[in-house]
Structures are given as structure tokens and as C-alpha cells.
């Protein structure tokens, strides 16, 4: 067998074996290994990723940190400007005052009380008009914002990838109808639908909570996710269309794989790179959308806090009499830095996963 092949290539038997041995020595590198390596070389993207990881960890561990309560009101007259940590490291008098927390968060607060007692940080980033600590609100707000973004992004991912992959793979008339539906949905001013759905949900919130146990926020996530799948579906469909007639798909079909198997086992992993890139761009969009809804008073409701709400609070305090710059700058800074990092990671991933650049550096 080997001889026969070698002969047809015009090689002697020995040559062929040597070549095969040589080839076996080269270790193959999967797309993801290659991408990971290239991502690590891209310093900007790598540090952005590290920053995001730290940020997510801080957001998750917020109840454990010795921050003042994000909701306790202190109705003094004026927002207090920031103080440097070295002039006022902390204060005593922490009170356990939050909105309804989950079981894990309650345990984290327990741990915090055990660790720090009633000690809490000083107003390092100032306080807002109602005497709440900005730093605490930014950290607690990051939880909401990250949760909104992740939930909505995953929702859009699930719908968009399934829809796009099916449309692209089935092709023909089905594809046509499915994409026409997407086109129609695209031309609907979605913001109106969202505003509308949210007002409806507000009307029926008591029933929803009692009967189905769904709270307003869950619906909020779902509604946002249900909008952002459109572009994802288009992107995935385009990719799948170009892969549909690749040899490995034909091979799978010849071997008798079902449609479901071909779509989810063979096609979806191959479009995953572009999906991930798109996902890193969806998350910022969702965070901005949350801010937008908060601005209209349709987003997260007080006493809960999100970055959107903070940014709104800040921009409402812009007035010519006195400049409360910390109310505008710090929330915007936190949001800007996170979204910037997400965008940079997205760019880095796109470069790292680009097959045209593969193996080159």
C-alpha cells in the first residue's frame, strides 16, 4: 500500500517513510491552541482579558468586600467629594442594609461581618445626592450590569446560532422564509417593542411573580436577549452557507449523520470563532442598552443599582451651580473601562481566530 502510493508520487519507498516520520514529528496545533497563543502575544487584548477577569471576580465577591451599604440613605444636603484613601482609610458603623439578597450573597455578607466587623471603607469616590457611597454603588452596580449583559448575550447566542445555522444549512425556500422573517424583524423599531413590553410587564408584575415566579428582571433579560439575536443569526447563517458544501459536511452526510448532528456537531463548532467575536461585541451593546432603558426609567429599579442607573444619576446632577464631577466621572469611567476592555478583547480574538493569519506572527 505504502509502496504503491509512493510509486505514484514518484518517490522511493524509503523516501515516503522518511517523509511520514517527519510529518509525525510535527505536532498538530488546533485552532484554539493557536488562537490562545496568539491572544497571549497580543498584550493589549491579554491585559484587557485579565482586567475583565479581575472585575468579574470583584463583582461576584462584592458582598465580601468591606464596602459601605449601597442603599443606606443619609440625607445630608450635598454630595460629598471623594477623599483620598490615605486621609480617611475607613469608618466604623457598617449596617447590614441591602435589597433582597440570594442565599450565597447572604453567606458572603456573613463572612464579611466576621472578617471586618463594622469597619467599612471611607468615601473614596465620594457620595451621591442621597449620601450613598459611589464606590460601593459602582461595585454593586457592576453585578447587575454584568448579569444583564451575560444573560442577554447568552439568550441571543442560543436563539441566533440555532436559527442562523438551521437557515444556512437547510437552505433553499426554508432559508429564504427564515431570513425574510429576520428582515421583517429588522425593520421594526425594536426600541418601541421593548418599551412596550416593559410597560406591559410592569402592569402585570404582581401576577407574574405570584403565578409563575418570574420577576421583572428575568423578563428584562429575556426581552433584551430576544432582540439581539437577529444579527447573530445573520452572521451565523452567512458562515454556515459557505461551509455547507465543504467536503467534511458531505462526508458526514454520506456517513448517515442526521441534520441535527450535522448542524450542532459539525457546523456550529466551525462558526464558533466568529460567534465568540460577535458575542464580545454584543455584551457592550447590551450594557449600553441597559443604560438607555435606565435613562428612560424602564431599566433596573431602585433600590437595586446598575451602571446605567449610576450614569443616569450622574448626568442628572449636571448643573451650572456646582459641579459634582465625581458623580459623572467615576460611573462613566467604570463603564467605559469595562466596555473598552471588552471591545479590545473582541478585536484581539478576531485577530487571533482569523484563519488568514493562522500560524503567522
Amino acid at each position, binding site marked *: 500500500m505504502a509502496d504503491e502510493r509512493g510509486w505514484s508520487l514518484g518517490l522511493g519507498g524509503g523516501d515516503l517513510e522518511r517523509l511520514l516520520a517527519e510529518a509525525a514529528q510535527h505536532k498538530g496545533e488546533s485552532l484554539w491552541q493557536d488562537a490562545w497563543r496568539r491572544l497571549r502575544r497580543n498584550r493589549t487584548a491579554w491585559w484587557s482579558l485579565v482586567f475583565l477577569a479581575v472585575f468579574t471576580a470583584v463583582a461576584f465577591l462584592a458582598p465580601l468586600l468591606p464596602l459601605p451599604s449601597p442603599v443606606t440613605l443619609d440625607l445630608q444636603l450635598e454630595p460629598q467629594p471623594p477623599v483620598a484613601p490615605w486621609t480617611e482609610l475607613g469608618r466604623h458603623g457598617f449596617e447590614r442594609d441591602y435589597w433582597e439578597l440570594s442565599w450565597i450573597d447572604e453567606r458572603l455578607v456573613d463572612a464579611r461581618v466576621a472578617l471586618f466587623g463594622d469597619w467599612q471603607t471611607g468615601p473614596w469616590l465620594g457620595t451621591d445626592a442621597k449620601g450613598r457611597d459611589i464606590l460601593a454603588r459602582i461595585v454593586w452596580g457592576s453585578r447587575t450590569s454584568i448579569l444583564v449583559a451575560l444573560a442577554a448575550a447568552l439568550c441571543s447566542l442560543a436563539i441566533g446560532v440555532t436559527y442562523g445555522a438551521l437557515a444556512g444549512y437547510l437552505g433553499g425556500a426554508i432559508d429564504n422564509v427564515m431570513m425574510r422573517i429576520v428582515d421583517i424583524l429588522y425593520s421594526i423599531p425594536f426600541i418601541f417593542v421593548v418599551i412596550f413590553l416593559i*410597560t406591559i410587564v410592569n402592569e402585570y408584575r404582581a401576577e407574574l411573580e405570584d403565578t409563575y415566579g418570574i420577576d421583572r428582571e428575568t423578563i428584562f433579560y429575556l426581552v433584551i436577549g430576544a432582540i439581539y439575536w437577529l444579527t447573530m443569526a445573520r452572521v451565523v447563517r452567512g458562515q454556515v452557507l459557505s461551509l455547507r458544501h465543504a467536503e467534511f459536511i458531505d462526508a458526514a452526510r454520506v456517513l448517515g449523520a442526521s441534520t441535527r448532528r450535522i448542524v450542532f456537531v459539525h457546523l456550529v463548532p466551525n462558526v464558533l470563532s466568529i460567534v465568540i467575536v460577535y458575542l464580545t461585541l454584543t455584551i457592550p451593546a447590551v450594557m449600553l442598552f441597559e443604560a438607555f432603558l435606565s435613562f428612560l426609567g424602564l431599566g433596573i429599579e431602585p433600590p437595586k443599582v446598575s451602571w446605567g442607573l449610576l450614569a443616569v444619576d450622574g448626568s442628572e446632577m449636571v448643573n451650572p451651580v456646582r459641579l459634582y464631577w465625581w458623580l459623572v466621572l467615576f460611573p462613566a469611567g467604570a463603564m467605559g473601562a469595562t466596555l473598552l476592555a471588552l471591545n479590545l478583547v473582541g478585536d484581539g480574538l478576531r485577530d487571533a481566530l482569523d484563519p488568514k493569519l493562522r500560524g503567522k506572527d
Partner: protein
Amino acid sequence: MLRFLLRRALWFAVTLWVVVTVSFFLMRGVRGGPFDGERALNPAIERNIAARYHLDWPLWKQYLQYVGPLNLDEHGPRFLGGDGSELLTGITTGDFGPSFKYRDFSVNDVIGQSLPISVSLGFIALAWALLLGLSSGIASALWRGSRTDVTLRLAATAGIALPNFTVAGFLVIGFVFLVPLLPVAGYGTWRHLVLPGFALGAPFAAYISRLTRTGMLEVLSHDYIRTAHAKGLPPRIVLLRHAIKGGLLPVISYLGPATAGILTGSLVIERIFAIPGTGSHFVNSALNRDYTLAMGVTILYTVLVYGLNTLVDLAYTLLDPRIELEQS
């Protein structure tokens, strides 16, 4: 071309029908009506109001009356000015009905007053976004990897990363309070539109800049650009005559979504700068259950978005002969 336009028109009709139907029934299905107030109305008055606006009809009949074109009301005043004797009515005749909240105005009046303001604001925002986005994107692509490139890209990414009301806040602090150059809010002269236009366009400028950079980089690596350089054309000509055409394609296709985004963004910006545009009606009418006004604004936005997308597709084929209209 004609076939393309016809097909588009057909889909447009379908889209519009879906939008009208879905939003009509959604809105009517929700609890609470336009005339709910703090105090319960006298039942007789309530009956009168309901009769005037046909709210006492079954829903399907209200829907048919709203869409038109046949007038189902045999007697009594239909809309403002009409005496109910007209044969034709409804949105198919271009009559969006009376506003439920602004008692003396029809929806057409409200839109007619506010739309020009919103359009001029959107136009300024788009123009500025294109100007800044294109020039910075091209500069970024030409000097790839340089300090200019890095700075511009960072600025562009930051522009995408901030909500437009925060941008507006910074602008107001900068150009109104610290350096008093422009009015803080209101509407009247061109100076009132500078800051809102800027704040509204900023995220789009940033996005266009990124798209332009990517598009230009792709085009600049093509063989025909090398050929153009090789035959001795000055770089400026290569750029302006050969590269730009291909490099701008992604930007063109983004213009449709961008316009939709600017329309949405104007909801916020108009509120911050107290500009009496259409955006403010959008949210308020949904909250107030001003059925006709909410529907009117929704239809208006659908038409705008759809029309602009069609224009963009047309422009696309003019710039890129490889794309055929039939497929798109």
C-alpha cells in the same frame, strides 16, 4: 432594478402590516387606557369619550377602522374636522387619527411639528459621524500601527464604550459650564443643535471609524492596489480613486442600522437637551396609552428605517458591481 424595487415594496407592505397589526393588538391588549386618570370619570362622560374614539366597538372593528380605507362609522364625528360622512378613513389614506392626549391635535399635526426638528438633528449627527469616522478611519488604516493609529483606535473604542447621555454630560460640562460657548438646552438656532448632534453622533463616528479602518486595510492589501502603485500613480490618487470605493462598502451597509440607531438615540438626546422632537413622543405615548400617537410614531420609524435600508442596498450595488440586487 425595477424587479428589485417591486419586491422591496411588496416586503415593505408585509412588514408594515405586521408592525401595525402586532402593535395595535399589543397596545389595546394592555390594561389601562388613555383616559384613565386620578379621578374616575362620570360614566356618561366616559361613554361619550369612548363613543367618540370608537373605544366601545369590538376590537376587530376598531382595527378595521384604524387601518381603513373604508369608514365604518355611519354617524357622529369621526376625527377632528371630519363629520363622519367621509367614505375613506384610516392610515391607508394617510390619516393617523386624533391624538388621545393632545386633545386638539391630530397625530399628523404632532408628527408634522416634531419630525423636522428630529430630522435636522439626526442629519447633523450623521453628517458629523461620517465626517469624523471616515477621516479618522482612513488615517488609521494608512498609518497602521503608528501612534496616530493607536490613539485614534482607542478614541474610537472609547466612543463606542460610553452611553450617549454620558457623552452629553461631559460635553455640557466642557462647553457650557467650563467654557461657556454654547447654550445648555432648548431649540431655536443652529447653536442649539451643535452639542446634541455631537453627542448623538459620537458612538456612530466611532463605529464608522472602525469599519472604515478594517475595510481600508482589506482593500489596501489587494493586488490591484499594488498594481496601481506599481504603475506609478501618486498615493493620493490610489487612495481616492481606487482604494476608497472598496473600503467604504462596510460603512455603506452600516448606514442603515446607523440611521435606526440615531433615531433611537435621539430619544435620549432630545430629552437631555429639551429638544421638542419626535423622540419624546415615542416613549411618552406608549406610557400614556396614547394609542394613535404611539402607532403613528411606530409606523413613521418603520417607514424611515425600511426606506433607508432600501436606499443603502441600492447604493451598495452602485458601488460594488459584484453584488446583484436580485440576491440581496
